[in-house]
């Protein structure tokens, strides 16, 4: 038990270090996230010219939402994760199969390490810049900070499982870009990344909440800005945990099925 936990930690460190070695890319990424943070913040603030509250957010909550989502983009890696499908295509997956750790577990721990790096260096800097310019809401109690931290870890886990499942399409399809586009579109819209789900027409928001996507962005954000408190906070975290467990199990199941079909050429 302890040994396998040490191994998990080792994978997480590797995930962290892979991104640590490109500081210039990090700096450029922070710049882009910041520019888009300003663009999105001003668009959302324009809604408050004649109104105090839109979709349960006041102006301060709306800008906090904007900068927090900008900080979470890379942390939960919304777009363009194709590592697993490339391993299937190139046959590198053969090495994963002989390792003593299940690839889903190794992938998840590696990804959690990666997300720690991205949260620290791609997430926090743009958020601080945003906080310097706009009135931003910060959690008032240590409990909310703690709940938010747990929520981000669960968000990364859910996002990883969805990315893994979407990549696994490469077991069956020559080209998994189509699936990636559909999943990417659904994630952007239903996670609440583009615009808060409470701004949506009611039925559309209800549909979004039936999917796992809000667990990636909307739930952590709502915990942070204090829209979810008390028993709702427990329900929110439980929802995330439920999706994380269900999707990871699905990821394992799909992997088992996929491997049965797998043909690796050459060697």
């Amino acid at each position, binding site marked *: 038990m302890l040994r396998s936990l040490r191994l998990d930690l080792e994978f997480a460190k590797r995930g962290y270090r892979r991104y640590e070695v490109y500081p*210039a*890319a990090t700096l*450029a*990424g922070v*710049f*882009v996230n910041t*520019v*888009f943070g*300003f*663009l999105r913040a*001003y*668009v959302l*603030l*324009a*809604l408050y*010219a*004649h*109104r105090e509250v*839109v*979709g349960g957010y006041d102006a301060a909550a709306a800008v906090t939402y904007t900068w927090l989502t900008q900080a979470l983009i890379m942390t939960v890696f919304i777009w363009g994760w194709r590592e697993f499908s490339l391993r299937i295509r190139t046959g590198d997956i053969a090495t994963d199969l002989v390792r003593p750790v299940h690839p889903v577990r190794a992938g998840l721990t590696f990804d959690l390490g990666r997300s720690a790096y991205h949260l620290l260096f791609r997430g926090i800097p743009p958020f601080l810049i945003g906080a310097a310019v706009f009135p931003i809401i910060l959690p008032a109690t240590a409990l909310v900070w703690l709940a938010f931290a747990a929520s981000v870890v669960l968000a990364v886990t859910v996002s990883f499982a969805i990315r893994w499942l979407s990549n696994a399409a490469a077991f069956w399809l020559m*080209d998994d*870009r*189509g699936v990636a*586009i*559909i999943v*990417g*579109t659904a994630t*952007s*819209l239903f996670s609440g990344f*583009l*615009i808060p789900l409470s*701004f*949506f*027409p009611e039925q559309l928001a209800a549909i979004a909440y039936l999917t796992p996507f809000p667990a990636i962005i909307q739930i952590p954000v709502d915990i942070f800005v204090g829209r979810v408190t008390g028993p709702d906070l427990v329900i929110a975290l439980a929802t995330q945990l439920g999706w994380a467990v269900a999707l990871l199990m699905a990821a394992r199941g799909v992997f088992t099925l996929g491997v049965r079909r797998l043909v690796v050429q050459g060697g």
Partner: protein
Amino acid sequence: MLEPASLYLRLVRARLRGQLQYRTSFALDIIGTFVISFLDFAVILVIFSNVPRLGTWSVSEVALLYGIACLAFALTDLAVGHLDLFPQTIRDGTFDLILVRPRPTLFMVLTADFQVRRLGRIAHAVVVLAYALSILGITWSADRLLVLLGAIVTGVLIFVAIWVTFICIAFWTVEGREVANAFTYGGVTLAQYPIDIYERWMRTFFAYVVPVAFVAYYPALYILDKPDPLGLPAWASFISPLVAAAAALAAGTVWTWAVRHYRSAGG
């Protein structure tokens, strides 16, 4: 004068033939881009389901801005979107090959590819623009039509100039795609909304110095017969071509200057 144009057409025909070899993949790419492109417009629709106006702008007026900006940007992306990959030619030193060719370097780089799959984005822009024009009930006259068509052409010129200018960063840093994207993709995002919603410092730099305001905002004011909330006189709508020419000249100058700083990787 005619020679580069006919050479360009021949190059485009060659790229087209190449990309049409894989019909299914090609069609899927176009459909995928078409679907994804609607995400940004969905945000606008969600915003207007909460408020009737953004500043002084109605949903159909913003749709006009969006349609013009997107169409100009989609055409730019079709023609020179491959500039995103340009830093690679600096990194591996293949820019050497361009330097020894018997045409100007910028011409060679701009014509290096022609990505027909970007047609999906153009189709999206045309759909939104047609929708906006059909519900706006504009009384058309020769001058309005001319301003609309002129906006598309000058918009393309301005976006190409922005792309070329900022990708030049690659000559010094060997990277630069992300930073350039902040101005290209950031630029079109800014132009999709009425620029009077942004703070003055951002407008000054991002709408006038980087002249994105002249892509859609000023032409749209003229077409809609709307006074400028920022107080520029009506003739501002007519100087877009001049601004585009100045931007192109600036981009050309930056390029020439940057090429002199090229140091081959020795490839």
